[in-house]
Protein backbone atom coordinates (compact mmCIF):
# COMPACT_ATOMS: atom_id res chain seq x y z
CA UNK A 1 0.00 0.00 0.00
CA UNK A 2 2.76 2.43 0.99
CA UNK A 3 4.81 1.45 -2.02
CA UNK A 4 1.84 2.19 -4.25
CA UNK A 5 1.49 5.58 -2.60
CA UNK A 6 5.13 6.41 -3.25
CA UNK A 7 4.75 5.16 -6.79
CA UNK A 8 1.89 7.58 -7.40
CA UNK A 9 3.85 10.48 -5.92
CA UNK A 10 6.85 9.83 -8.08
CA UNK A 11 5.11 8.74 -11.24
CA UNK A 12 4.93 12.13 -12.85
CA UNK A 13 8.55 12.87 -12.05
CA UNK A 14 9.89 9.52 -13.17
CA UNK A 15 7.60 8.66 -16.02
CA UNK A 16 10.30 9.03 -18.67
CA UNK A 17 13.13 7.20 -16.93
CA UNK A 18 13.06 4.35 -19.46
CA UNK A 19 13.73 6.91 -22.15
CA UNK A 20 16.69 8.17 -20.15
CA UNK A 21 18.14 4.66 -19.81
CA UNK A 22 17.68 4.07 -23.52
CA UNK A 23 19.39 7.33 -24.31
CA UNK A 24 22.35 6.56 -22.04
CA UNK A 25 22.66 3.07 -23.46
CA UNK A 26 22.76 4.36 -27.03
CA UNK A 27 25.33 6.97 -26.09
CA UNK A 28 27.57 4.37 -24.43
CA UNK A 29 27.25 1.92 -27.33
CA UNK A 30 28.25 4.72 -29.70
CA UNK A 31 31.38 5.54 -27.69
CA UNK A 32 32.27 1.83 -27.51
CA UNK A 33 31.87 1.47 -31.25
CA UNK A 34 33.68 4.66 -32.25
CA UNK A 35 36.60 4.36 -29.85
CA UNK A 36 36.86 0.60 -29.52
CA UNK A 37 36.28 0.64 -25.76
CA UNK A 38 35.69 -2.56 -23.77
CA UNK A 39 32.29 -3.96 -22.89
CA UNK A 40 32.37 -2.86 -19.24
CA UNK A 41 30.32 0.23 -18.56
CA UNK A 42 28.72 2.01 -15.66
CA UNK A 43 26.75 5.20 -15.43
CA UNK A 44 25.01 7.16 -12.76
CA UNK A 45 22.54 9.99 -13.16
CA UNK A 46 21.14 12.36 -10.58
CA UNK A 47 18.12 14.52 -11.38
CA UNK A 48 16.89 17.01 -8.84
CA UNK A 49 14.03 19.50 -9.06
CA UNK A 50 14.01 22.43 -6.68
CA UNK A 51 12.28 25.78 -6.98
CA UNK A 52 11.09 24.96 -10.47
CA UNK A 53 14.57 24.29 -11.84
CA UNK A 54 15.93 20.92 -12.74
CA UNK A 55 19.55 20.10 -12.20
CA UNK A 56 21.21 16.94 -13.37
CA UNK A 57 24.60 15.31 -13.10
CA UNK A 58 25.78 12.41 -15.18
CA UNK A 59 28.80 10.23 -14.67
CA UNK A 60 29.69 7.73 -17.37
CA UNK A 61 32.46 5.16 -17.13
CA UNK A 62 33.28 2.99 -20.11
CA UNK A 63 36.27 0.72 -19.71
CA UNK A 64 39.14 2.83 -18.50
CA UNK A 65 37.53 6.19 -19.38
CA UNK A 66 35.23 8.29 -17.28
CA UNK A 67 33.26 11.50 -17.93
CA UNK A 68 31.31 13.76 -15.67
CA UNK A 69 28.84 16.42 -16.80
CA UNK A 70 26.32 18.75 -15.17
CA UNK A 71 23.30 20.43 -16.65
CA UNK A 72 20.69 22.94 -15.53
CA UNK A 73 17.47 23.22 -17.47
CA UNK A 74 13.76 23.77 -17.39
CA UNK A 75 12.90 20.08 -17.49
CA UNK A 76 14.50 16.70 -16.91
CA UNK A 77 15.38 15.77 -20.45
CA UNK A 78 16.79 19.19 -21.21
CA UNK A 79 19.01 19.24 -18.13
CA UNK A 80 20.11 15.65 -18.74
CA UNK A 81 20.84 16.51 -22.37
CA UNK A 82 23.06 19.36 -21.20
CA UNK A 83 24.85 17.10 -18.72
CA UNK A 84 25.53 14.58 -21.48
CA UNK A 85 26.64 17.34 -23.82
CA UNK A 86 29.17 18.51 -21.23
CA UNK A 87 30.40 14.96 -20.83
CA UNK A 88 30.72 14.49 -24.59
CA UNK A 89 32.64 17.76 -24.89
CA UNK A 90 35.14 16.34 -22.45
CA UNK A 91 35.26 13.27 -24.67
CA UNK A 92 35.88 15.23 -27.87
CA UNK A 93 38.66 17.14 -26.11
CA UNK A 94 40.34 13.80 -25.52
CA UNK A 95 39.34 12.48 -28.94
CA UNK A 96 42.53 13.37 -30.81
CA UNK A 97 44.74 11.80 -28.17
CA UNK A 98 42.57 8.71 -28.11
CA UNK A 99 42.60 8.46 -31.88
CA UNK A 100 46.42 8.67 -31.97
CA UNK A 101 46.60 6.10 -29.17
CA UNK A 102 44.41 3.74 -31.22
CA UNK A 103 46.51 4.30 -34.36
CA UNK A 104 49.72 3.63 -32.41
CA UNK A 105 48.21 0.48 -30.93
CA UNK A 106 47.14 -0.71 -34.36
CA UNK A 107 50.61 -0.04 -35.79
CA UNK A 108 52.21 -1.91 -32.91
CA UNK A 109 49.90 -4.85 -33.44
CA UNK A 110 50.84 -4.86 -37.15
CA UNK A 111 54.54 -4.80 -36.33
CA UNK A 112 54.27 -7.36 -33.58
CA UNK A 113 52.54 -10.08 -35.57
CA UNK A 114 54.16 -12.87 -33.60
CA UNK A 115 52.55 -11.87 -30.33
CA UNK A 116 50.17 -14.61 -29.13
CA UNK A 117 46.57 -13.75 -29.93
CA UNK A 118 45.42 -14.39 -26.39
CA UNK A 119 47.63 -11.64 -25.02
CA UNK A 120 46.40 -9.20 -27.65
CA UNK A 121 42.79 -9.83 -26.74
CA UNK A 122 43.57 -9.46 -23.06
CA UNK A 123 44.81 -5.91 -23.57
CA UNK A 124 41.33 -4.70 -24.44
CA UNK A 125 39.85 -6.04 -21.20
CA UNK A 126 39.94 -4.50 -17.78
CA UNK A 127 42.43 -6.21 -15.43
CA UNK A 128 40.80 -9.18 -13.76
CA UNK A 129 42.43 -8.49 -10.40
CA UNK A 130 40.28 -5.42 -9.72
CA UNK A 131 38.72 -5.79 -6.30
CA UNK A 132 35.17 -4.56 -6.82
CA UNK A 133 34.62 -3.99 -3.12
CA UNK A 134 37.16 -1.14 -3.36
CA UNK A 135 34.59 0.74 -5.41
CA UNK A 136 32.32 0.90 -2.39
CA UNK A 137 34.87 2.73 -0.25
CA UNK A 138 34.15 6.40 0.46
Amino acid sequence: MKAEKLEVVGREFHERRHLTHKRMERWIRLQQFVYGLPEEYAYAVRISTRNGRTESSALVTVGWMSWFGRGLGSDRQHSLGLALLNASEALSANGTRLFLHNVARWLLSCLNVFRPRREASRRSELPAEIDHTDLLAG
Partner: protein
Amino acid sequence: MEILGSIQGENVAIEGREKMQRQMRDFISRLQKGDRWNSGNVLYKVHFWRPFFGAKVDSLIEFRADGQEAWFARANGPDPWKAFCRAMGSLKQIVTEMEMREEGAGVNESGET
Protein backbone atom coordinates in the same frame (compact mmCIF):
# COMPACT_ATOMS: atom_id res chain seq x y z
CA MET B 1 11.90 8.59 7.71
CA GLU B 2 10.59 5.64 5.78
CA ILE B 3 12.72 3.53 3.48
CA LEU B 4 11.09 1.07 1.13
CA GLY B 5 13.19 -1.05 -1.14
CA SER B 6 13.28 -4.14 -3.26
CA ILE B 7 15.99 -6.29 -4.82
CA GLN B 8 14.90 -8.29 -7.83
CA GLY B 9 16.59 -10.62 -10.25
CA GLU B 10 15.42 -11.64 -13.69
CA ASN B 11 16.90 -15.05 -14.51
CA VAL B 12 19.77 -14.23 -12.16
CA ALA B 13 20.45 -15.82 -8.77
CA ILE B 14 21.23 -13.10 -6.25
CA GLU B 15 23.53 -13.75 -3.32
CA GLY B 16 24.35 -11.32 -0.56
CA ARG B 17 21.09 -9.41 -0.39
CA GLU B 18 21.90 -8.29 3.15
CA LYS B 19 25.17 -6.73 2.02
CA MET B 20 23.34 -4.89 -0.75
CA GLN B 21 20.64 -3.64 1.60
CA ARG B 22 23.28 -2.39 4.02
CA GLN B 23 25.04 -0.51 1.22
CA MET B 24 21.78 1.08 0.11
CA ARG B 25 20.90 2.21 3.63
CA ASP B 26 24.42 3.58 4.15
CA PHE B 27 24.11 5.58 0.94
CA ILE B 28 20.70 6.98 1.95
CA SER B 29 21.94 7.97 5.40
CA ARG B 30 25.00 9.63 3.87
CA LEU B 31 22.82 11.78 1.63
CA GLN B 32 20.46 12.63 4.45
CA LYS B 33 23.31 13.65 6.73
CA GLY B 34 24.56 15.97 4.01
CA ASP B 35 21.08 17.58 3.82
CA ARG B 36 20.66 16.58 0.21
CA TRP B 37 17.53 14.58 0.93
CA ASN B 38 15.18 16.21 3.36
CA SER B 39 12.27 14.05 2.39
CA GLY B 40 10.64 11.55 4.68
CA ASN B 41 10.09 8.83 2.13
CA VAL B 42 12.81 7.16 0.13
CA LEU B 43 12.15 4.34 -2.27
CA TYR B 44 14.88 2.24 -3.82
CA LYS B 45 14.96 -0.57 -6.31
CA VAL B 46 17.76 -2.87 -7.37
CA HIS B 47 17.21 -4.94 -10.46
CA PHE B 48 19.45 -7.53 -12.10
CA TRP B 49 19.03 -9.19 -15.43
CA ARG B 50 21.06 -11.00 -18.02
CA PRO B 51 20.92 -9.58 -21.56
CA PHE B 52 20.25 -11.84 -24.52
CA PHE B 53 23.71 -11.23 -25.95
CA GLY B 54 26.79 -11.21 -23.79
CA ALA B 55 27.89 -13.09 -20.71
CA LYS B 56 27.65 -10.23 -18.26
CA VAL B 57 24.95 -9.35 -15.76
CA ASP B 58 23.35 -5.91 -15.89
CA SER B 59 22.36 -4.10 -12.73
CA LEU B 60 20.11 -1.11 -12.21
CA ILE B 61 19.85 0.90 -9.00
CA GLU B 62 17.15 3.52 -8.55
CA PHE B 63 16.46 5.90 -5.70
CA ARG B 64 13.46 8.18 -5.46
CA ALA B 65 12.96 10.75 -2.76
CA ASP B 66 9.46 12.27 -2.69
CA GLY B 67 9.32 12.88 -6.42
CA GLN B 68 11.91 15.65 -6.20
CA GLU B 69 15.09 13.64 -6.46
CA ALA B 70 15.92 10.74 -8.71
CA TRP B 71 19.23 8.94 -8.62
CA PHE B 72 19.86 5.96 -10.77
CA ALA B 73 22.84 3.98 -11.89
CA ARG B 74 23.41 1.11 -14.23
CA ALA B 75 26.43 -1.11 -14.77
CA ASN B 76 27.40 -4.52 -15.99
CA GLY B 77 29.71 -7.08 -14.47
CA PRO B 78 30.55 -10.78 -14.45
CA ASP B 79 28.21 -11.47 -11.50
CA PRO B 80 25.41 -9.58 -9.67
CA TRP B 81 27.58 -8.46 -6.76
CA LYS B 82 30.27 -6.99 -9.01
CA ALA B 83 27.67 -5.28 -11.19
CA PHE B 84 26.09 -3.87 -8.04
CA CYS B 85 29.46 -2.63 -6.75
CA ARG B 86 30.19 -0.85 -10.01
CA ALA B 87 26.80 0.86 -10.12
CA MET B 88 27.01 1.87 -6.48
CA GLY B 89 30.58 3.06 -7.01
CA SER B 90 29.33 5.39 -9.76
CA LEU B 91 26.68 6.83 -7.46
CA LYS B 92 29.26 7.44 -4.74
CA GLN B 93 31.56 9.06 -7.25
CA ILE B 94 28.79 11.50 -8.22
CA VAL B 95 28.39 12.43 -4.54
CA THR B 96 32.15 12.93 -4.26
CA GLU B 97 32.21 15.09 -7.40
CA MET B 98 29.38 17.23 -6.05
CA GLU B 99 31.08 17.63 -2.68
CA MET B 100 34.34 18.61 -4.34
CA ARG B 101 32.57 21.20 -6.49
CA GLU B 102 30.74 22.63 -3.49
CA GLU B 103 34.00 22.88 -1.57
CA GLY B 104 35.60 24.53 -4.60
CA ALA B 105 32.72 27.01 -4.88
CA GLY B 106 33.02 27.84 -1.18
CA VAL B 107 36.68 28.80 -1.47
CA ASN B 108 37.31 32.44 -2.31
CA GLU B 109 40.19 33.80 -4.37
CA SER B 110 42.53 34.01 -1.40
CA GLY B 111 41.96 30.31 -0.77
CA GLU B 112 39.93 30.74 2.42
CA THR B 113 36.68 28.88 2.92
